[in-house]
């Protein structure tokens, strides 16, 4: 499943499969294909990437700083860079990962904080986590939910950040390692396991109890696949 960048060769898509000339790409197009079209000079592909990720990157940037002008400037610089270097960029399998990695490097440089020395590089409230269950059928134990929220508040900025990358953004450990600038993938795993451990201690109940309460709360809901 994992393909290294060098292994992917981008043959040009047949016209019907390409999304040049359409406002939105066909859903069958993968990130690799959209990125490949962009690198080959497709303006609709570039516009699609911009339109899709501007709001995403804006929210991401605001987790680091309250300065919305700075966030917009960095998005602008990033996309100008992409546009100018389009033909020399390497292949990517996840556009969001590529953009997050580039964006974070740029904003950290701007904020001029040493991320390896201090945890305190996010803005007040940055990467704060909320638990809003998306399935209205699932009635979770409100008391437990509240205690979980409180426990999440006690996490450090980096702990909150990794939780969001992993459980909200859907990045894997390899991607998180790159985004957060860890030397080794183990460091990402260690940060995550320590974070989970801290949460468990904060909740002050055994995993078994948590599980029972939650399970009771969502009885009746089912996995849809």
């Amino acid at each position, binding site marked *: 499943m994992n393909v290294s960048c060098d292994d992917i060769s981008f043959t040009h898509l047949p016209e019907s499969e390409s999304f*040049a*000339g359409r406002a939105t790409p066909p859903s069958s197009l993968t990130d690799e294909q959209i990125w490949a079209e962009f690198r080959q000079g497709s303006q609709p592909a570039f516009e699609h990437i911009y339109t899709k990720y501007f709001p995403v990157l804006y929210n991401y940037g605001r*987790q680091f700083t309250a300065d919305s002008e700075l966030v917009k400037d960095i998005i602008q610089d990033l996309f100008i860079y992409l*546009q100018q270097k389009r033909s020399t960029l390497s292949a990517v399998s996840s556009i969001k990962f590529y953009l997050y990695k580039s964006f974070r490097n740029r904003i950290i440089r701007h904020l001029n904080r040493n991320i390896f020395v201090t945890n305190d590089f996010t803005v007040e*409230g940055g990467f704060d986590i909320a638990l809003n269950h998306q399935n209205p059928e699932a009635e979770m134990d409100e008391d437990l939910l509240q205690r979980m929220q409180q426990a999440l508040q006690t996490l450090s900025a980096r702990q909150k950040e990794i939780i969001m990358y992993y459980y909200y953004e859907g990045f894997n450990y390899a991607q998180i390692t790159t985004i957060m600038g860890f030397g080794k993938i183990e460091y990402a795993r260690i940060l995550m396991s320590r974070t989970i451990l801290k949460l468990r201690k904060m909740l002050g109940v055994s995993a078994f109890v948590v599980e029972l309460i939650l399970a009771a709360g969502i009885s009746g809901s089912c996995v849809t696949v």
Partner: protein
Amino acid sequence: MGYENFTTEEFIGDQDFVRWVKNPTAELDLFWADWLTRNPEQKQKVATARNIILSVQYKNHYQPNAGDMQAVWSKIQAADSDSQLASDTSRQLWPVLFRSAAALVLISVAALTSWRYLNSTKIPTGQVAAKLIEVKTARGKKDLLVLPDGSRITLNADSRITYQSDFGSTHRDLTLEGEAFFEVQPDKTKPFHIQTGNLTTTVVGTSFNINAHKADPQIKVAVSTGIVEVAADRQTPQESMVRLRPSQMTIFSKAEKELTVRSFDPDLELAWTNDRIALKNADFAQIKSVLERRYDVTFVVDKGLEVKEEFNATFENVSIDKILDALNYTSEFHYKLVKDKVFVTRKNAK
């Protein structure tokens, strides 16, 4: 794999499980559907784990202001067209220079995406000898043309575009007679050249207007977005070149064979692209040529009559009758339409 004995917490901590919840693929869906039918006792835990993972949100989710996305996009576009011709980019200037052009670029990109698909006919390169393609508009007509590279040309009345059928494959050269508004697809490797008499306009990706009717005493190139280079060829005394920024226009005087640069009013120069006629301090020759082309009429001036008037007017989507009515109201001459001829007579002469 041991999923049979997993607790909810172990599911939440499992990388492959999280991958399925956050980045599902048909393959993963199939795997878990199949696994759950074989392990129904784990359904509850899987559902709980899924719900918890999916409930994780940003507490402060920031939305950009309406307009931010467009404003930033136009700056990105502007930086692109600039960087390709001018290497000394000073980004400080952009916000001021390009604000007015923002809407135009976005509209052009949006329109482009729907048009290109209809018009994209792939021409095999090097197979067949290129042949000349000509697109003409009659008087009273306007045409929208989408080139193989996706660039868009709005061709005003009584105008002509010619290009080789291999346009876009190795070059982007075309010739223009008359007036057209160009929205050029960016392509650093193949600059877009427009030949108009002694003038060559070079551009990489931008939008601008060229007015180059053979009968007119001058050629005008007016830039909406990006940077455009206009060069007068060797047949002119001084082989000269100007570089235009947005809201700048160059006027090439055919008599003096000189390029001058000045700012322009888009409401005036680009009025026709919005089906408007806008004239400011225009002489009779100007209003005559504009109306003749737009409405496919011919002006017939009474013998010995010299119309020396200045015209200032804006018309939007009106008939030639209405325009002549307005002229008659202010002018010291009388304009009368008979079939396709406009007779200009002295007022007291009836």
